[in-house]
């Protein structure tokens, strides 16, 4: 983190970091991820290491409700994905 230069922040110049990226996820009947696509390749989920839920901004027009999963994949990689519980879309995001 660098010191702020003092220049006025302009909203149109702010670019959010760590934006979620859409990901294809295969789930079982209980909704638990079984496989994900990384670099156009399906990788099986070896273990669900952790899961947590975020509900925020429920007072706004577009509330945030996400179910996060920390997944250990068959090749040893660990990825964090979430399912948007409103739009039911899946995304990958470092937490």
């Amino acid at each position, binding site marked *: 983190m*660098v010191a702020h230069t003092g220049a006025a*922040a302009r909203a149109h110049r702010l670019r959010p*970091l760590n934006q979620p990226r859409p990901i294809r996820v295969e789930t079982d009947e209980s909704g638990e991820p079984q496989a994900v696509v990384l670099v156009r390749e399906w990788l099986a989920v070896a273990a*669900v290491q952790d899961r947590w839920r975020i509900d925020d901004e429920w007072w706004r027009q577009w509330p945030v409700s996400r179910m996060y999963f920390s997944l250990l994949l068959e090749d040893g990689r660990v990825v964090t994905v979430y399912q948007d519980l409103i739009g039911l879309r899946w995304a990958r995001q470092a937490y």
Partner: protein
Amino acid sequence: MRVACVWLPHFPVAVERRNRVALNRRPVIIGETTEQRGAVLDCSTEAEGQGLRVGMPLRQALGLCPSASFLPPDLPRYGDAFDQILRALETVSPLVEPATLGCAFVGLEGLNGHYRDEMALGGALAQAVGHACSLMSSVGLAEGKFTARVAATVSAAGEVCLVPKGQEKKFLAPIDVCLLPCSRDTLRHLGLFGLRTVGDLASLPLGAAQAQFGSEGRRIWELAQGIDGEPLRPLRREESIREHLAFYAPLISREALVTAGRQLLTRLLGQPAMNGRVARRMTLRALLSDGRCWERAVVFREATADQEQMLCVLRTAIETAPLTAPIEELSIELSGFAGETGKQEGFFSGNGRQRRQVAESIRQLKARYGRSPVAQMVEVEPWSRIPERRHALIDYDP
């Protein structure tokens, strides 16, 4: 996934007995002697027969078996012996995963054509271990790591146990639940519910196991059904270089050891493997005159090829080492190599002149491209639970 498990029960005891014949057929306990507060690392079957268990406090162990030969652990030696075994197994299959000391899994994919049948393949694995370290191993072959491990555990030394595909559930049914990989608390509860064998657990519906034991219940229920999707994680060997120095007369002076270490570092850093590269890790090993080993691995804060930096770390390690006997041999191993690179300075952290130069360069770039191509990270809502709200990039406009 067809897997073999190579199992050497009571591996530390077996290694000690290989070197000292007098320990054969006598109860042996291996554990840290410092104030006798440690736990039993391993014990022989004779000691187990008198009620000893791995992990038991040493005071209790000595009380139960006062006639046992008590040995302090020599972990570097056990590690060396196990490494020899892993290397021998790698001559049979390239997919070898070390599990615990004395237990390894071997991937069998693609090996069928090389051996008459799976029994011959299991025999080749046992033979490779025998040639490498003169110890008897048992081998289990099955679909999945858990079943293979159980097959190896229930076999006698030198035997190969084959579980045909599709027969996992039947094979596991009479096995005691204590072989399931679960917590002590879960094992106790299984006992309280009268579930003595893996077959008892398999006869329950999944919902009941999961409701009682949570995610662990699901895992052990699946294992009881013969379902084991845990992948094999083969060992990835790392490149390393090593030099050693044997002393004519065992050394007791730490200063002399540091001098020997300096000589070893000079040799190591002069090797072609270090040309243009830096090392991340240094492992020191000393062979003591009583036959034991002392080992210490140090990870550098930054990868380095600088002899003085390495020597500084080495000096600290030697000065704080609990050396209990004179040293006969010292060796140093360097590993974790990376390409030698320049040191990245902070972009905005230079002195006044440097900052002015950076600002001027950015102004020129802005004039050329219309906007500043340099951005800096700023905190937006660092407390937010939503990751993308915490930080953002903002154009750097001096």
